[in-house]
C-alpha cells in the first residue's frame, strides 16, 4: 500500500479524483440553483438564469448591463438571441482574450445555458431570434440556386467551397466545414464580427435555406485529399515537392558537369 502511494502516478490520480469531485459538486449546486430560481413563468426563470450566466461569463468584457466597453467589447443590447446562440454555440464566446478574430473553440456552455443566456440578451432589446428547425431544414431547398447565391454573396471571403480565407489585419473568414445549419443561418442574419449582415429582406429565408443546403452539400462531394485548399487537392504538397525537386535537379546538374578526378593532359 505504501509502495503504491509512492507510485509516481498516484499524485495525478489524487488530483484527478479531486477535480472530478469538485466538478460533480458544482454541477449539483448549479442544478439546484436552476430549479429554485424560477419565480414565475418559465421564460422569467430562463431570463434570470441567463442573467446569472451573463454576469459570470460575459460581464467582465461586455459590462454589467451588456452596454459594451469601448475598445474592448460591443454592446449586446438589440443583437438578439441569434447572435448569442451563434457566438456561444461555436465556442467563440466567452472569448479567451481580445483578438483580431475569435476562432471557433470547444463549446463552454450547455445548450440549455446558451438558450437561457440568449433569452436574457433578447429581453434587453429584441433582435433576430434563433431560427427554428423548420427554418434551417434543407428539405425542398434548391442547392443549385444556393450555389449561385453563395458564389455571389459569400464565396469572396469564405471560398467557393467554404474553406475560408484571409481578411485584413489578422482577421479571417472562417471555414464553414464545422458550421451547423442553424449557425450558418444565424451568421447570415446577424453578421458576426467583420461579416456583413444579410437580413431576411436582402437574402430571403428561402434563399438562406438554399445557401445552407449548398454548404452542407459541398461536404459530401469527393475530396481529392492533401492539405486542403478548398478541395483543390494536394496542390500545396505538389508545389513543395516541385520546388524541392527543382533544387535537387539544379544540384544534380552542377554535380554532373563539375570537373572531377585527375585530368589527362
Amino acid at each position, binding site marked *: 500500500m505504501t509502495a503504491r502511494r509512492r507510485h509516481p502516478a498516484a499524485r495525478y490520480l489524487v488530483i484527478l479524483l479531486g477535480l472530478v469531485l469538485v466538478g460533480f459538486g458544482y454541477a449539483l449546486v448549479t442544478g439546484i440553483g436552476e430549479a429554485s430560481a424560477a419565480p414565475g413563468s418559465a421564460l422569467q426563470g430562463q431570463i434570470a438564469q441567463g442573467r446569472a450566466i451573463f454576469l459570470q461569463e460575459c460581464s467582465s468584457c461586455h459590462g454589467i448591463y451588456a452596454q459594451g466597453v469601448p475598445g474592448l467589447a460591443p454592446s449586446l443590447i438589440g443583437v438578439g438571441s441569434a447572435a448569442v446562440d451563434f457566438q456561444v454555440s461555436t465556442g467563440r464566446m466567452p472569448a479567451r482574450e481580445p483578438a483580431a478574430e475569435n476562432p471557433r473553440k470547444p463549446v463552454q456552455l450547455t445548450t440549455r445555458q446558451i438558450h437561457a443566456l440568449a433569452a436574457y440578451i433578447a429581453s434587453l432589446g429584441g433582435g433576430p431570434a434563433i431560427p427554428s428547425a423548420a427554418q434551417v431544414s434543407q428539405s425542398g431547398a434548391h442547392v443549385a440556386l444556393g450555389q*449561385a*447565391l453563395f*458564389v*455571389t*454573396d459569400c464565396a*469572396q*471571403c469564405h471560398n467557393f467551397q467554404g474553406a475560408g*480565407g484571409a*481578411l*485584413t*489585419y489578422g*482577421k479571417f*473568414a472562417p471555414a464553414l466545414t464545422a458550421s451547423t445549419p442553424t449557425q450558418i443561418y444565424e451568421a447570415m442574419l446577424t*453578421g458576426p*464580427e*467583420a*461579416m*456583413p*449582415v*444579410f*437580413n431576411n*429582406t*436582402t*437574402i430571403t429565408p428561402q*434563399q438562406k435555406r438554399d445557401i445552407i443546403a449548398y454548404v452542407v452539400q459541398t461536404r459530401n462531394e*469527393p475530396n481529392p485529399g492533401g492539405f486542403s485548399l478548398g478541395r483543390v487537392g494536394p496542390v500545396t504538397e505538389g508545389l513543395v515537392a516541385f520546388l524541392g525537386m527543382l533544387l535537387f535537379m539544379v544540384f544534380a546538374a552542377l554535380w*554532373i558537369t563539375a*570537373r*572531377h*578526378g*585527375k*585530368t*589527362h593532359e
Partner: protein
Amino acid sequence: MSDSPAGPWPGDDQTARNGAADEAPRRVIGTPPPGVSLLGDPATYTPAAPPRELPADPDDLPGAKRAERVVAACFLIATVAGLAFLVAYFAFPVHSLVGVQRSNLALGLSTALVFLGLAAGTTIWVRRLMPDVELTEGRKPLRSSEEDRAAFEQTFNEGADASQFVKRPLLRRTLIAAAVPATLAPIVLLRDLGPLPRKDLTFTVWRPGLRLLKADANTPVTPGSFSSPGGMITVVPDGYQENFDALAKAAVIIIRFAPGQVEYTNEDHPVPGKVVANWTVDNIVAYSKICTHVGCPAALYEQTTHHILCPCHQSTFDATRGAKVIFGPATRPLPQLPMTVDAQGFLVARHDFTEPVGPSYWERP
C-alpha cells in the same frame, strides 16, 4: 526451305564451307586478307604511330569495377521498373476515379524510376568509367573552295535560265502578283484583335433611372429591404444580368451604414476621401466592384472596420471615406455610383460613374 538439302546457292553446301573453314585461317569480313597491308610495303613504309589521345582504361581499376556494378544496378532498376510499368498498365483497372488515380500513380512512379535508373546509370558511367579528357579538333574553313563556288554559280544560272523564269516576264509577274495578296491576308487578319475600345473604357452601361438588381436573385432593392447596417451586397444593372462584357465594368457593391459612420462631402465641391452625400440613399453607398489596381472583383467587406479588400493583391479601401486606398497597390479609390430612388421606391442610378472604373489605362483622362 530449311529442309532442303542444298543451301540457297548451288554448290555452297555445308561440307564445302566446313572444309574451307578448316583449311583457311579465320578472317573477319571487311578486313584485308592476311599478308596484305593497306599501308603498302612494310619494308618501305614505317608508320609513325600517333600518340594515344584517350586512355584505354581508367586509372582506378578497382573503383571502376565498383562503379560498373552500381551502373549495372541502376540499369537493372530501370529494367524492373519498365516491366512494372507494363504490368501496372494491365493490372490496374481504370473504370472509376479512384482506379484512375491508382493507375496514374503506378504508371507515373514506374516511368519515373525507369528514367531515374537510366539517367543515374549513364551519369555514373560517364563520370566514373569514361576518361575526363578535353580534346580540341581543328575546324575546316567555312568558305567553299573557288572551284565549288564557280560550279554552283554556273549550275544556278543554268537552272534559272532553263526554268524560263528570266525569259518569260508574264509568268514571273503573275507569280509575284499571286503571292502578294496571300502574304497580305494574315496581316489583314490582325484586324480581329480590334476594334479599339475608344470610349468603352470611359463609360459603363449605368444610365439615369436604371435599377440596381441584387446579383443572382435579380430582384430590385429598396432602401427599406436593404435596411440592416453592416449589410453589403453585389448589384447589377437591370437588363444586363447576363451581359458579362457590361458587368465586367458595371458590377457594383452597395453597403448600408449606420447613421454617423460615413464622412460626407458635397457633389458641387467634392473632397477626396469622402462620400458624396447626394449620391447616397439612407446611408446606402454604392461603389464600383472592380478594383482600380488590375480589375479584380473587390468585395471582401468587413462591417466592423468598413474595409473593402481586394483578394488579388490585398488593396484595401475605406468604405466610410469614399473608398480611399489605405493599403495595397491600388492608387485610386473605387468610383462611387450616384444613386437615387425611383417612383416605386427602388434604388436606381442617378447617372453613370463620373470617372472610368477599373484599372488605369493609357488614354485615361
